[in-house]
């Protein structure tokens, strides 16, 4: 009984929102806007539900003493502390800002730095692990882009910076990107239509 109702609701809302773009009726527009507002509210609640789920998962991990339960303990502690302080002090409070700038930003920045170092290491060992033409081509492309992105200390390279790198970035890469974007757009359209027609039912269980 659940599935037919959920399917009917999804189809109805999808059609209303879609028709609102093509039929400039005030009622449709108002309904569409209202439905979008409901989606925004539900998205906000979904974020809260996600946080609660995260909390429960790690709590279960601690209760069952699984591997990595210590990290789950730290996570729950930090979560609860931040949540409680945020409720008490408010999200705009300087303490909250301090916590964010002292913990979140450095941690994520460090992760990005490690990523950079790892990529350099992988590039250095790439030819050793896999010595083939594509690997060479890949490495050459990387070098060219890097050379064209930042000038050398002793001065920019005239051809690389002015011709090669723009060609790689703006022609080759852009072409690939365009293809990807087109595919994504078509896929999004198809997925939306399938949901509107009831072919795909990502809701309601099975």
């Amino acid at each position, binding site marked *: 009984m659940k599935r037919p109702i959920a399917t009917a609701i999804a189809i109805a809302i999808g059609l209303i929102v879609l028709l609102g773009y093509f039929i400039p009726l005030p009622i449709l527009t108002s309904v569409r806007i209202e439905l979008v507002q409901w989606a*925004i509210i539900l*998205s906000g609640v979904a974020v809260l539900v996600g946080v609660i789920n995260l909390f429960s998962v790690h709590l279960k991990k601690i209760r069952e003493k699984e591997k990595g339960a210590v990290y789950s303990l730290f996570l729950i502690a930090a979560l609860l502390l931040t949540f409680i302080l945020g409720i008490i002090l408010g999200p705009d409070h300087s303490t909250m800002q301090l916590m964010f700038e002292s913990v979140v930003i450095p941690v994520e920045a460090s992760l990005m730095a490690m990523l950079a170092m790892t990529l350099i290491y992988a590039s250095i060992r790439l030819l050793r692990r896999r*010595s083939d033409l594509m690997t060479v081509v890949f490495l050459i492309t990387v070098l060219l882009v890097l050379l064209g992105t930042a000038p050398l200390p002793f001065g920019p390279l005239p051809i690389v910076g002015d011709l090669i790198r723009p060609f790689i970035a703006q022609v080759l890469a852009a072409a690939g990107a365009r293809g990807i974007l087109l595919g994504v757009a078509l896929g999004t359209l198809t997925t939306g239509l399938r949901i509107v027609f009831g072919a795909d039912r990502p809701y309601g269980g099975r």
Partner: protein
Amino acid sequence: MAEIRCPMCGKSNPDSLDECQFCQARLKPITAPLDPLQPGEPPTKKNTSELEKTLPGWLREARKAEDDNTGFEETPAETGSVSKADSTDLLGGLADAQEEEEEVPDWLSRLSPDTVKTPDRKTPSTPKESGSGDWLSEIRHETPDTSEQAPTTPEPESFEAGPETGSIDLGESTFRVDDTADESGFGSFSFGKADEEDNQIQADDSEVQPFITFDGDGSTAEGELPSWLSNFAEGNSDQEPSESTEPETADTSEPQAEGELPNWLSGFSADENPAQDTALETPAAPEEPLKEETQKAEESQVPAFEGELPDWLSTLPSDGEQGQSFTGDAEEPVQQAASPSEPGPEAVSKEESPEWLANLPSESKATELPNVRAFTDSLKKMPTDESSPDVGLPNWLGDESAGEPEGSDAVQPAAPESEPPVESELLDRLTASPAAGDGAAQEPPDITGPPFFVEEKASSDEDVEAIFSMDMPDWLSSLGPGDQEQSQASDDSAGESDESLVPGDLPGWVKAMRPVEAVVDKAPVDSGESDRKVEHKGPLAGLSGILPAGSASAPTHKTQTYAIKLQVSDAQQVNASLLERLLASEAKPRSLSTSAYVMPQRFLRWAIAVLLILVIGVTTFAGTSVVPLPNLYPNETLAAIKAINDLAADGTVLLVFDYNPGLSGEMEAAATPVVDHLMLKGMKLAALSSVPTGPALTERFMRSLQDSYDFQPDQQYVELGYLPGGSAGVLGFASNPLVTIGQTISGTNLWASPALENIKSLGDFSALVLLTDEPEIARTWIEQAKPKLGSRPLILVVSAQAEPMVRPYYESGQVQGMVTGLMGGVSYEKVNARPGLSTRYWDAFSFGIFFAELMIVAGGLWSLISAWLARRTQPAEKE
């Protein structure tokens, strides 16, 4: 119409019918339901007149014929002889046996306890008193007792059901054998009509025909001596003219009190007086009480049956006694009966000659005849009655037993071979009479059992010799005196151990009934030990070649053997070997290449990290400006600059901070000159974020610029907060920003602030500047918000990693400007001539990139060389 259901087939029949119209079973009981007879209780008397219907037809007719004869009805027992007509009727009654199943033959009816008694005949002493031996005398003495008891059997006599262990179906009558041995070595056996239930003889007058039972001692189960037997015994004694004999049968002088010859037998010897036929029917009148009939039968035992002696009996060789033996003496009473009176036996033989007897094959009869020898031996051992010297072994049996050793010795060694001839001779004699006087159209009952009655009085030597002059049947010859003694001893021992049935001992005539060697293949297949093994117990005792119990389960033949070796061709063998090698190679573990570069790898990582930290750190903190700034500016950056320059003053620009904290360094470096330019323009700023960390990043970014530009919150800058919902949120904000972002947590209406005055929709913003490091977010804002912006510029500040995916939007004209990473920031700052964070990071950025490039090149070259060297060494190792 009422219906009654047949107890046999279960079908419905009209109530008026007595027999089922489908299966001919009786629907209504003949008499009222009887009370069950408890063990030890004497049967209750029943009105035998009601049981007339139960008599078989042939018996009914026999009795009717007997009734027609005068003088027999009143004293049927006294006549003691059976007229020829009676005998004829008897035999005639047998012919009608099929039609009237319920009629009891007259001679059978006379065997009731009431009719059979020894009373007037005077039993000088009971067998028990005399010390057991003479079972016939016992019968004779016991008959008075039994006569007093009210038989519960139907009309003619009262028959009782004795214990039996087996039965021989004679059609309407059956022989039942009680395997319990007695002193004489014989088990008790009974003769009667079978009940519907197998081997369950009930004292039910309504359904069961009367039985006559004889114990081993010659008496009935309840001590009743049947008339014919008493007459038989008396007749063997050859004296004591039976007082109970009928006047018609003058020569029926067989004593009936002591071993009375059955009427039918005595009648054979006396006369075939048709009047004697009434003796058969005496018990006769259906309505007469059973007791009266039994009394009459007792009185006229021999005479009652004398006249009914069948012809076949009359033709039998007779001894000096009268009607003593079943085989030989049967002729005597017939002859005796025939001589003085009417041709009874002949008439009987004509009218009532047992066709059944004539129809019996000689061999079958021979095989079925009881062991005469056994009987004679047992009879010899019975104590004779002193008062009645006639009581005891009949003459024919006695003499024969006397001469038994001679004859038996001669016979026994060749018993297996001579059996058939002996028996055939007996049967020939038996069949001769019926053949001679075969006038009866009745079918005699199929007697498959041995004769059960034994004359009490020993026959004369002549009779015995006459009988035993012929070859003794195996069943008789095998049972010698020693056998009887052994059986008695075994019985005694068995009796001591087990008071109940004595296992294993069978009476002689039962032993004779077992398949004898004459019937069995004389040349049994020699199967080895099984043939030599002789069975000692059971119905197959004495036979050899009996298969053991477990022989059936033993395999009789050798199982077929199959070759174990698999038959394969050469090609199959080659393929199999190939497959085997392949499987072996799979299972064979490959040699692991030892990894000797674990340490160098870790060192390399550390080296890379240290080098980068040093280079970037030194150049950053040192504030060097070694690396020259770019001279060529990206077009998208220039477009962004132009777009912002074209903005109207005092407008509000929407800043969307949708980048992650990890790329905050690059993004802040790239966004600072743009926001600075906006601030220089005097634009009001409204900050919004669609990621949860956006508001915090916005706060951080704006705080860093505040020192330079002294932005006042809510005056020049407003934070709209977090916009949830992803694309739906962007769509909602783009559609109606006032509804989507209404109030703050504190309840303040943000849209009322001076920075957002005159902002009612997204199109009221002067521009939208999106700061993001993800192409998806850029695409979302471009696809959802741009239509609502209209002509307002959309400027993107993206990281270098998102540029390829976002550039198509710039090149398609949907984005008016784009600042890409640190390069764009530097270019923007250089164009605005306002060096900022990007310029400060430029040297570090350059050196970092340069060293990264160096490491990549060096490492690549090193990898190529090492790989080449490794390939050179591998062939050498393989060689």
